[in-house]
């Protein structure tokens, strides 16, 4: 048995271990689960070392003599003060920096990419000029977005005509969830197809070519 075949058998064994959870929780599943957590954590450590620490920190610091890189190094080490109760507050400095950067970047990303750009995309003509289907679609998009936003408006009771609009909004949301449901089914089935390909094809070689 060469190393490649051995790999496929090992993969098949663990695949079956995890599928056995469908019957019920059992020692094989538990074994596979723990092996997986261990391997994936170890995978991450090695990858961070080879793909981040060496090229982005170690080489600039030692080979190019960029002493400024000591700053992120110290900030990184500070994170580990969490394990020492007395000085654990120091880790907040690094966390503060990370959270600040992510918040700043997120504000810009959501503000420009989602908020303003999406409003721009929904300013559509409701009459004149276009063919009927486009106008019909524009009406649906405009009414749909407006009523959905009304549904998520919390400063006014959903009563009277405002309530009716909110009701229309929830119907649009339900349509939207339905589409998501359909697509989720598609996604999950694809993953299973992929696994069966592996079991029947790569492992057992019983699939027609």
């Amino acid at each position, binding site marked *: 048995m060469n190393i490649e075949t051995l790999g496929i058998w090992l993969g098949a064994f663990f695949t079956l271990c995890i599928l056995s959870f469908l019957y019920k929780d059992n020692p094989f599943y538990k074994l596979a689960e723990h092996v997986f957590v261990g391997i994936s954590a170890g995978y*991450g450590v090695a990858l961070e070392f*080879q793909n981040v620490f060496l090229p982005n920190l170690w080489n*600039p610091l030692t080979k190019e003599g960029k002493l400024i890189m000591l700053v992120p190094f110290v900030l990184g080490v500070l994170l580990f003060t969490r394990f020492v109760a007395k000085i654990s507050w120091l880790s907040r400095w690094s966390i503060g920096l990370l959270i600040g950067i992510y918040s700043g970047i997120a504000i810009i*990303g959501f503000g420009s990419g989602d908020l303003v750009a999406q409003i721009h*995309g929904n300013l559509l003509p409701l009459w004149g000029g276009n063919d009927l289907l486009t106008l019909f679609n524009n009406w649906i998009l405009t009414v749909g977005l407006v009523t959905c936003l009304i549904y998520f408006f919390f400063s006014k009771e959903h009563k009277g005509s405002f309530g009716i609009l909110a009701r229309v909004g929830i119907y649009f949301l339900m349509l939207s969830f339905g589409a998501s449901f359909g*697509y989720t089914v598609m996604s999950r*089935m694809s993953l299973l197809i992929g696994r069966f390909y592996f079991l*029947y094809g790569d492992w057992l070689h019983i699939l027609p070519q």
Partner: protein
Amino acid sequence: MKRLLETINSLDRRYIFLFIGLAVSLPLFFPIGIKFTVTHPVQGFYNTIEKVPNGSKILMSCDYDPGSAPELYPMTISALEQMFKKDLKVVITCLWPAGPPLVEKALAHVTPQYHKQPGIDYVNLGFKEGREVVMVSMGASIPNTFPTDYQGKPVSQIPIMQGVTNFKDVAMIVNISAGYPGTKEWVQQVQSRYQIDLVAGCTAVSAPEFYPYYQTGQLKGLLGGMKGAAEYEKLVGFKGLGTRGMDAQSISHLTVFLFILIGNLAYFALRFWKGKASR
């Protein structure tokens, strides 16, 4: 009849598991080959790459892991096929840790038939931690963000990376994404900042969420799930893993539809009966 309905209504889920397992397996053994057409978002994906002048450089970010490989790996293969056929040069990055080995696998699969050289026609820059910060950082400088390729070779020694400083030096971005960080962040942080053409292939779970981006043109094309991969394979001109999975996909969807139908019929019929009995 009533007993049958009650059995259906309280069926052990393991029987259902068995049934769906069969519904997915059988079409793999007995393929039918149902035909299908190509939808607009997929055509957009293909056309945007096709429009790029030969010899240009393209940035491809493979942000996924084995958890969604059956959907996204076929897309990676087809995209590489299309780009290599057109003699485009591909710079590949990963923002998901488990991405780079999958990229290596895809490259090993595609490159031999097109006689492409590593470092000259393509490069796998590997993984960087930092999610959207990496994107913003690449906007300032790609070589500073990725000082070496996946194997640790400095980018200054890689021919394809000469003259690549930031997004201005690539013709467009192809993103294959399974979630966060992925398509949404590429739109928010890169497309809306640098106005660069962006196409995305993503899992079916997240595809509906990206239709608004497709409608506004923030995405020029969109492949959703294995069906998207299959349509794209049709355009590129070969039958890969996506196309081969379509029969099983069709049958499994029909099965789920039947499940919803039968489940509801049993439920409501039983309620109707019980209502009658108590009256």
